[in-house]
C-alpha cells in the first residue's frame, strides 16, 4: 500500500509530462481519444524500457564523447522496430498515430532518461526506471485523452487495437452539450494548461507543507 502511495505521489511530483514538460509534442497531438493515447503510451513504454536496458548494459564500453549518437542510434532502431510491428499487427493505431510514431525518436523523455539515468545505473534499476517513467507517461496521456474525448465526443470508449472490436463504451454527455473545440488544437492546449496548472498547484501545496514542518 505504501509503495502504491509513493508511486502516486511520484506520479504527481515528478510527472514527466505535466511537471517536467518532456515529450509534449505527441501528448498534445494524439490525445483526441483513449485508443490513441494507450497506443502511443504503450509504444513509448516499450521503447523506453528496452532502450534503458540496452544503454545501461553498454554504459561501460561507450566512449563519453560519442554517447549521444550511440543513444540516438539505439533509440531509432527500437522505434523503427516498434513502428513496423504496429504497422503489421495494429494497422488502426498506425493510421491514427501517423507520423507521430516515428517521431518517438525525438521524444525527449527517452533520450532524457538514457542520459540522466540509464547511463549511470545498473540494468535492473534502469529497467524499473523505464517502466516507471513509461507508465507515468501512459497515464498522463490517458488522463488528457479522457478529458478531451468526454468533452468533445460525449462518450468514453476503448477499442481492441489488434482487431478493432469495441471493449467498452459509455455515453456521458448528451449530443447537444458537447464541446467540439476540444478535438481541435485549441482544446489540446487548454486541457494541457489546466492539467499542468493543477499539478503545479499540488506541488506548491506539498512544498508549503514541508516548509511548515
Amino acid at each position, binding site marked *: 500500500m505504501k509503495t502504491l502511495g509513493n508511486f502516486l505521489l511520484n506520479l504527481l511530483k515528478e510527472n514527466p509530462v505535466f511537471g517536467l514538460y518532456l515529450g*509534449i*509534442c505527441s501528448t498534445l*497531438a494524439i490525445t483526441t481519444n483513449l485508443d490513441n493515447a494507450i497506443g502511443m503510451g504503450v509504444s513509448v513504454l516499450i521503447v523506453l524500457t528496452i532502450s534503458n536496458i540496452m544503454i545501461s548494459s553498454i554504459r561501460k564500453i561507450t566512449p563519453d564523447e560519442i554517447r549521444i549518437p550511440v543513444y540516438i542510434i539505439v533509440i*531509432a532502431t527500437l522505434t523503427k522496430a516498434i513502428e513496423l510491428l504496429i504497422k503489421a499487427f495494429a494497422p488502426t493505431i498506425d493510421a491514427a498515430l501517423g507520423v507521430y510514431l516515428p517521431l518517438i525518436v525525438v521524444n*525527449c523523455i527517452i533520450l532524457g532518461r538514457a542520459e540522466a539515468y540509464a547511463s549511470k545505473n545498473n540494468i535492473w534499476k534502469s529497467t524499473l526506471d523505464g517502466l516507471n517513467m513509461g507508465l507515468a507517461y501512459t497515464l498522463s496521456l490517458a488522463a488528457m485523452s479522457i478529458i478531451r474525448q468526454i468533452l468533445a465526443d460525449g462518450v468514453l470508449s476503448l477499442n481492441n487495437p489488434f482487431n478493432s472490436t469495441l471493449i467498452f463504451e459509455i455515453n456521458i454527455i448528451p449530443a447537444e452539450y458537447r464541446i467540439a473545440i476540444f478535438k481541435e*488544437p*485549441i482544446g489540446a492546449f487548454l486541457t494541457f*494548461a*489546466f492539467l499542468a496548472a493543477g499539478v*503545479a498547484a499540488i506541488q506548491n501545496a506539498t512544498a508549503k507543507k514541508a516548509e511548515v514542518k
Partner: protein
Amino acid sequence: MAGLITLFISNVVISNVVLTKFLGMCPLLGVSRKSSSAVGMGLAVIFVIVGASIFTWTLYYTVLVPLNLQYMDLITFILVIAAFVQFVEMFLKKYSPALYKALGIYLPLITTNCVVLFVTLDNIIQGFDFVHMLVYSTAVPTGFMLVLYIFSTIRERLDQSNIPNAFKGNPIALIVAALMAAIFTSFAGLV
C-alpha cells in the same frame, strides 16, 4: 507556380507546424522568453531544415530506394540530421565566429527539435519532387519562426502581469498558445 505559392502560404500560416501539428513545443516553451533569442533560434532552424531536407531527400532517392532499404529511413535521417548539425556548428565556428556567437547555443538543441525530423520524413511521405520539397522545407520552419517570435513578444509582456500562482511559467504560456491556435485556424479561408 501558383501551386508552389499556395503550398508555401498554407504551411506558414494555415497548417502551422507548431499550432496545428504541435511540433517544436520544447523550444517554444524553452527559448521563447526573449524575442532576440527567438529570432536566432528561428533562423538556425530554417537553415538546418533546408540543408537536412536536401541531404535526406537526395539520399533517400539515390541510395535507399535503388537498394530497397526504405525501412532504414528513420535511422539514416536522424544520423544525417545529427551529423549535419554538428558539421554546421564546426563550420560556423571556424569561418564565421560572429554568426556562431549568435546561433551557437541553439545549434545543439536543434538535433532534438522534432520539426527537423518531421519535415525530412514528411518530404518522403508526401512524395514531393525536388522543387516542392525545397518550398515545403522553407515554409514549415518559417511558420515555426513566425509563431516563436509572436509568442516571445507576448511572453515578455506576460512577465509583467499578475498571474495566479499555479499558472506561472508554462501553463499560462500554453493558454496563450491556445488563443494563438484559435486565431491561426481562422486563416483557413485564405487559400
